C-alpha cells in the first residue's frame, strides 16, 4: 500500500493535498475570479435572460434598425454642417439639398428611374447567368477529381484577370450593347459562386456521404440528398458575394461604354462637371447594392435555419 492509499476520508485527503502543496490547512485562501470565469457568468446571465423571455437590447428589431442608421445620419449631419459653414467650396462638395434637387430633377425628366432600372436589370441578368454557370462548374469540379485536375487551373488563371482587362475584348467581340455588359457582369458573378461551391463540395463530411452510399444512394440521388443540402449554406454565401461583385463589374462596364445606367451617369456627370449628380449616383449605387444584399441576406438566414 502506498501513502495515498491510507488516506480514507475526504478531510484526510484534503489535509494531505494541502500539506503536500505547502499550505496550512486552516488558512482560508482568497480566490479572485479569473477573467474566463467572469465571462462565463456573464454568458450565463444572458442565458438566464433568454430563458425568462427577456430579449436583450441588441436582439430587438427596432434597436437593430435604429442602430444601423445612426452612422449614416451622423455623416449626413456632418456633410450638411460642412457645406452650410462654407468649409469647402460648392464646386468640390455640393450640399445635401442640391444633390436632392439634382435627383428630383433627373427623376422628373424620367432619366433617374430609367438609369436605375437598366442598371438593376443588367446586374440581375448577369448575376443569374454567372451564378448558374458557377453552380454547375463548381459542382463538377467539386465532385470529380478528374474535372478538378483538368478544369480548375484554367479557371484559376481566368479568375486572375482583372475585370477591366476584359472590356476591350468584349467590346470588340460583342459590340457596345447589352451583351458585352451582361457578359462582364456574369464573369464577375461566376467566380465567387464557383469557388465557394467547389470548395464546399470537397469538404462535405465524408462520413455522411459514406452513410448515404451505404444506404443505396449514388449519383444524382446522393448529390440531392446529402451533398447539395450540406453545401447549401456555403452556396448562398457565395451567391451573396457574387451579387456584390456584380455591382462592381456593372460600374466597370458602364463607365467604359454605355449610353444609360448609373455608371453612364457617373462618367457623363464627370465630363459635364456635375458633381452633385456624381454624388447622387454613388449614393444610389450604395443603396441599391445594400438593398439587394439584404434581400439575399434574408434568404441566407432562412437557408441556414432550414438546412443546418
Amino acid at each position, binding site marked *: 500500500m502506498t501513502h495515498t492509499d491510507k488516506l480514507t476520508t475526504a478531510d484526510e485527503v484534503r489535509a494531505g493535498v494541502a500539506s503536500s502543496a505547502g499550505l496550512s490547512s486552516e488558512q482560508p485562501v482568497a480566490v479572485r475570479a479569473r477573467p474566463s470565469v467572469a465571462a462565463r457568468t456573464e454568458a450565463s446571465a444572458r442565458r438566464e435572460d433568454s430563458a425568462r423571455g427577456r430579449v436583450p437590447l441588441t436582439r430587438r428589431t427596432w434597436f437593430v434598425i435604429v442602430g444601423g442608421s445612426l452612422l449614416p445620419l451622423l455623416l449626413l449631419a456632418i456633410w450638411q454642417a460642412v457645406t452650410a459653414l462654407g468649409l469647402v467650396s460648392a464646386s468640390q462638395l455640393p450640399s445635401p439639398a442640391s444633390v436632392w434637387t439634382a435627383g428630383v430633377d433627373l427623376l422628373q425628366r424620367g432619366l433617374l428611374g430609367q438609369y436605375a432600372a437598366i442598371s438593376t436589370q443588367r446586374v440581375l441578368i448577369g448575376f443569374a447567368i454567372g451564378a448558374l454557370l458557377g453552380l454547375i462548374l463548381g459542382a463538377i469540379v467539386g465532385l470529380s477529381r478528374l474535372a478538378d485536375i483538368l478544369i480548375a487551373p484554367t479557371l484559376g488563371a481566368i479568375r486572375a484577370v482583372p475585370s477591366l482587362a476584359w472590356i476591350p475584348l468584349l467590346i470588340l467581340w460583342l459590340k457596345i450593347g447589352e451583351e458585352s455588359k451582361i457578359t462582364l457582369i456574369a464573369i464577375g458573378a461566376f467566380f465567387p459562386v464557383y469557388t465557394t461551391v467547389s470548395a464546399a463540395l470537397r469538404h462535405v463530411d465524408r*462520413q*455522411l456521404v*459514406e*452513410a*448515404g*452510399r*451505404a*444506404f*443505396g*444512394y*449514388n449519383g444524382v440521388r446522393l448529390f440531392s*440528398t*446529402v451533398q447539395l*443540402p*450540406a453545401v447549401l449554406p456555403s452556396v448562398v454565401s457565395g451567391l451573396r458575394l457574387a451579387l456584390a461583385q456584380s455591382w462592381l463589374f456593372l460600374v466597370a462596364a458602364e463607365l467604359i461604354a454605355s449610353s444609360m445606367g448609373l455608371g453612364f451617369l457617373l462618367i457623363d456627370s464627370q465630363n459635364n462637371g456635375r458633381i452633385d449628380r456624381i454624388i447622387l449616383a454613388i449614393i444610389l449605387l450604395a443603396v441599391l447594392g445594400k438593398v439587394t444584399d439584404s434581400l439575399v441576406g434574408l434568404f441566407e438566414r432562412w437557408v441556414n435555419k*432550414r*438546412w*443546418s
Partner: protein
Amino acid sequence: MTSSRLTAGPQGALRAVSNSAKGPEFETTDAALTVSFAGIGRTFPGERGQGRSVLRDISLDVKAGEVLAILGTSGCGKSTLLRIAGGLDSATTGDILIDGRPVTPFDARTAVGFQEPRLLPWRSVADNVALGLVRGTPKTEGAARVANLIDLVGLGAFAGHRPRQISGGMAQRASLARALARNPGVLLLDEPFGALDALTRLKMQDLLLDVHAAAPTTVLLVTHDVDEALQLADRIILLGRKDGEEGSSIAQEIVVPGHRPRDRGSAELAELRGRLLAGLGIDRHGEARGVEKTTAMPTFPY
C-alpha cells in the same frame, strides 16, 4: 425462448410491416442470411510502396440469425473486417459471400450501424430513419414502417426533432432504426454504443436484443467491450496479431453459453471475460475461485 420483456405490440407490428414491405421487384431479405469469409486479407498501401497489412487469413462462417461479436484492441482491423462485409471496403485477398453470393459494393443485403450516428442534420429523426428504407418502398408503407421503428427504439415523441435537438443516445437509437429500416439480411454494427455513457449503453444492448428477438437477422457486432460481447453474442471472435506476423487474424473463438438475455452477474461469464481480457492483453489481477471451467449451459445453436 423469446424475450419475455418485449410486449407483443411492437413485435407483431414490426413483423407485419416487414412482411408487407417486401415487394417482388426489390431485393429485401426477410430471412437472415449466412456470411462466409474465406481467407480474407487486407493490405493498405503505405509509404514508398510498402503495404501495411491489417488483416490476414480470416476464415469464418456465420450462421443465419447468429449474433457474432468481433472483439479486438483498437487498430486491429475489426472495423475493416466489418466494412469489407458490407461492401464499404474490399478485401485484398480472399472471398466473402453473403447467402452464397459475393458481396457487391455497398451491398443492399446489409445495413450498417456506424460508430457515430451519422444523421443528416437538416432532416428530422423520422426523415433520417426513412433514408434507410429500400428504394421503391411505397410511400404509405414506408411511413408506417418508419413510425413503427421509431416507436420500437423509443423515439416516438422525438420523430419531428432535428438530430442536434436530441441526445447522443437518442441519435444512436435513430441510427439503429435507420439501419433496421431496410430489413437487412445482415446487420453490421461498428461499435454502435461505443460513444455512449455506461448506463445508456446497457439500455441500448437490451434494446438490440429486443429488436433481434422481434426480427431475427444475422448480426456482426464490432466492439472493444468484452461485457457487451458476452451479453449480446452467440459467438465471439477475438482478432489479434501473432508475434512476428503483420496483420491480425482470429486469435480466439468462443461460443458463449446460455440464452439471451443473460444474467449480467453470471460467474461463468465472468470466467469467460477473464479469458477474453487476457487475450486482449489485459491482466485480470486474480484467479477465478470456485467456478467450474467447463460449462453445462447449452451453446448456440441450441
